[in-house]
């Protein structure tokens, strides 16, 4: 199968308009004859399900949480970018496009990113109309702030809960459609397989997590909005249940997985404090607007109280290395700099894995009240977790896995190489390249769901002459049987170890060997070890409880099993990409000053991997990245 990204021809600013005109439409009266399955109810899935139902399609939406409102998009704190130029500071669609391409280290598809910047303004209009209470100025207009990787103020926010507010906006739109009967919502339901009929995605197999019942669902198209795979590292800022299962099941059925090695490490998380830890807590990057990052200049000072370390003994390393961006340097750069400082033995806090984020100057300059207004909830959260008061002593932060830029490969229409399978939001790979800018995840999720997919899916549906297959079709029967067999197998191993212990083991290996700094030796070691853990898993797993009841252990076991297959692909991709770019940093490929060394000659492509079986080498398909508009340059934030 060839990889056709279906990018429309013409100048970049007109591609989307032209494409919208060229696409086939479904007659309004005919829309109700088509059904669409949406898996996931976050920003992407929720907004897509609502918008599709508004257009008249029959939508079934699935989420594994107890309510669509709980999707992990809810945890995004900082904000959402949009090229509104409300602040009159020189922002434009082109600037947002350029910043995103550059932030992504020239590994994203130009046309997709331009479209993202184009629709960004509409997203804000849409959300305000839904009643999202964005922050405002006294005059009644919307407030903005600046965010990492940008020199304009284009980020809209709702206190430190922007993701929550945007998700609740999408959830309210979705709820309205559920109430109207246009969306059938399935809560506590997990997709366990994709059904492909005659080479087209036509349905899914679902387990009801409360009753254990397995059901088949057929539709004219399947949309995955199932998020990222950060939890392959066990410890991440993602919610506990975030997983790769839906995407991986699709990959096993033939959808290509693109750029899995592009993972983002968020620089401002609360450091790890113990082995029992179940998750890492992120604090909004907006903290970097006023906080100054530093470590002691000398290793000997690390044990001292921060207040006892004089100004001239502190190393404000981001300000020193990147004078123009300073503490607002992009995420990958800030994270790696923190790791370097800690590797250099100058980390602070338990285990030496932390750097200071200091608000003393900001409090002196703006007053405690202003800092409280801006970050009060974050300071409170920090205190609840660490027991430390960040108004009086600097916070300790350390990078943690946060977002994954890689995902299922999609073309310009957000359709994967499997016709009928659309992938939106974090689950696809398309817009962020090798690194995502702050406040861009929310933008992408909503752009895909509100303003891109509803058009492009129509183009596909309009060409579907046959009705969706019946769930009695042999492919459905076969897929359901496979799901049953797999669950039975998980239940029947009756070994000694919990699913959690395998997850923990895998995550530790991934963080150590495929984490912030990667090298050939470590990656090869991981490639050797992952199959061993997998083998042990299938021999020594123990799942207690029943298949027919709510069973967290069984759910976890299935997700860990998929992580164990997927981790190998992620590692292989990291090994094959012999360059450093964005969130992927190969220690062998760096500049003399430690900056990432990209290799545009050999690696300016999207690596899309075709699954060939567990333990079999996947096949690499390359989509060359052609830059017509932007000149690929070395990223510099100095």
């Amino acid at each position: 199968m060839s990889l056709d990204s279906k990018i429309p021809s013409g100048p970049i600013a007109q591609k989307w308009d032209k494409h919208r005109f060229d696409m086939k439409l479904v007659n309004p009266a005919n829309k109700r004859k088509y059904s669409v399955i949406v898996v996931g109810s976050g920003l992407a899935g929720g907004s897509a399900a609502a918008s599709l139902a508004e257009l008249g399609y029959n939508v079934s939406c699935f989420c594994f949480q107890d309510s669509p409102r709980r999707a992990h998009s809810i945890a995004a704190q900082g904000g959402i970018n949009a090229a509104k130029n409300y602040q009159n500071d020189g922002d434009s669609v082109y600037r947002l496009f350029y910043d995103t391409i550059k932030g992504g280290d020239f590994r994203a598809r130009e046309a997709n990113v331009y479209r993202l910047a184009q629709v960004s303004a509409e997203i804000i209009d849409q959300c305000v109309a839904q009643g999202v209470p964005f922050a405002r100025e006294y005059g009644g207009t919307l407030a903005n702030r600046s965010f990492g990787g940008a020199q304009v103020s284009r980020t809209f926010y709702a206190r430190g809960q922007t993701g929550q507010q945007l998700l609740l906006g999408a959830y309210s739109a979705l709820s309205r459609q559920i109430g109207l009967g246009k969306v059938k919502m399935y809560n506590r339901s997990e997709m366990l397989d994709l059904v492909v009929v005659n080479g087209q995605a036509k349905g899914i197999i679902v387990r009801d997590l409360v009753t254990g019942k397995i059901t088949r669902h057929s539709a004219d198209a399947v949309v995955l909005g199932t998020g990222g795979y950060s939890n392959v590292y066990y410890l991440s800022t993602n919610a506990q249940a975030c997983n790769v299962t839906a995407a991986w099941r699709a990959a096993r059925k033939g959808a290509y997985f693109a750029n899995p090695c592009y993972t983002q490490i968020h620089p401002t998380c609360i450091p790890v404090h113990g082995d029992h830890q179940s998750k890492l807590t992120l604090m909004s990057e907006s903290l970097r607007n006023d906080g100054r990052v530093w470590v002691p200049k000398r290793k000997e000072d690390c044990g001292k109280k921060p207040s006892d370390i004089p100004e001239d003994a502190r190393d404000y390393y981001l300000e020193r290395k990147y004078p123009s961006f300073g503490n607002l340097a992009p995420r990958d750069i800030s994270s790696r700099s923190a790791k370097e400082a800690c590797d250099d033995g100058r980390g602070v806090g338990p285990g030496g894995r932390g750097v200071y984020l200091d608000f003393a100057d900001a409090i002196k300059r703006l007053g405690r009240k202003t800092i409280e207004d801006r970050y009060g909830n974050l300071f409170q959260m920090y205190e609840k977790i660490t027991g430390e008061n960040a108004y009086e002593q600097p916070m300790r932060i350390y990078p943690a896995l946060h977002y994954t830029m890689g995902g299922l490969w999609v073309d310009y229409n957000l359709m994967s190489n499997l016709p009928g399978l659309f992938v939106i939001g974090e689950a696809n790979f398309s817009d962020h390249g090798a690194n995502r800018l702050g406040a861009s995840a929310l933008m992408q999720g909503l752009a895909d769901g509100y303003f891109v997919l509803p058009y492009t899916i129509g183009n596909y549906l309009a060409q579907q002459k046959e009705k969706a297959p019946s769930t009695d079709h042999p492919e459905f029967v076969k897929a359901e049987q496979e799901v049953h067999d797999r669950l039975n197998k998980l239940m029947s191993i009756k070994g000694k170890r919990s699913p959690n212990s395998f997850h923990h083991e895998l995550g530790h290996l991934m963080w150590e060997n495929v984490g912030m700094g990667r090298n050939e030796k470590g990656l090869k070691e991981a490639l050797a070890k992952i199959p061993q853990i997998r083998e042990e898993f299938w021999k020594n797993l123990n799942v207690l409880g029943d298949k027919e009841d709510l069973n967290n252990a069984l759910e976890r076991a299935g997700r860990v099993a998929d992580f164990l297959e997927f981790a190998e692909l992620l590692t292989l991709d990291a090994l094959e990409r012999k360059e450093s770019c964005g969130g992927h940093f190969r220690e062998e490929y760096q500049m003399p000053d430690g900056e990432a060394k990209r290799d545009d000659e050999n690696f300016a492509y999207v690596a899309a991997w075709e699954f060939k079986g567990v333990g079999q080498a996947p096949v690499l398909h390359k989509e060359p990245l052609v830059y017509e508009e932007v000149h690929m340059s070395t990223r510099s934030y100095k």
Partner: protein
Amino acid sequence: MSTSNSMTFNIRIWRQKNAKTPGKLVEYKLDGISPDMSFLEMLDQLNERLYAKGEEPVAFDHDCREGICGMCSLNVNGIPHGPDSQVTICQTHMRIFKDGQTITIEPWRSTAFPVIKDCVVDRSAFDRIIQAGGFVSVNTGGTPDANALPISKEIADLAMDAAACIGCGACVAACKNSSALLFVSAKASQLNLLPQGKAEKDRRVLKMVEAMDKEGFGACTNTNSCEAVCPKGIPVTFIAQLNRDYAWAMLKGAAAEPKATVGGA
């Protein structure tokens, strides 16, 4: 600050196989707990040890573990989300408990929130209330510019106070009447306060209250328990706002079904 000493607890936790089987409180002794653990990490430890003994782990709802998804829902020592104020139980840390203490853990209790298993309850009643009217009826696209309607900072902030609700249901769990009015009033007030939500304010309030009653939640007797346990500190003044909006809607006769009109050309 982190401390290295380990703590021991006597955990009494609700075990119930499924909705049909009656449940009971079961006691477990749990040692080696670090004060830096979160409450749910303590339960993870309990579950790992149960696992090692071949006993089925305790089911409890949780997801983001940073106090925003609203999934965690445990009644700890008689208080939803436990003794720490203005946080969810997932953000509560063991350092606030006393070494050797007995900790009683129960699911939310309310007719409208039936127990599914152990400490997991079904809160879909909240979803149905939102489906009845907790939205602005606006389709995707065709909306005016975001700055077209100025909204005073005070109103935007007040709407945000209401919008901070995470839908966890602690208000219902804490209320002696199992009233959902703090949830309903927060959701309705957020939209009723904003100009974008004003057009269908009356209809929204009536529909949401009707749905709330249908789900079997009780009435608000203004005890303030909801406010005391709300992890987001949502004030009961929103309940007063809802009562006011409801009374106005009724006075205006908004509850009468409009006569059907023949429309379209």
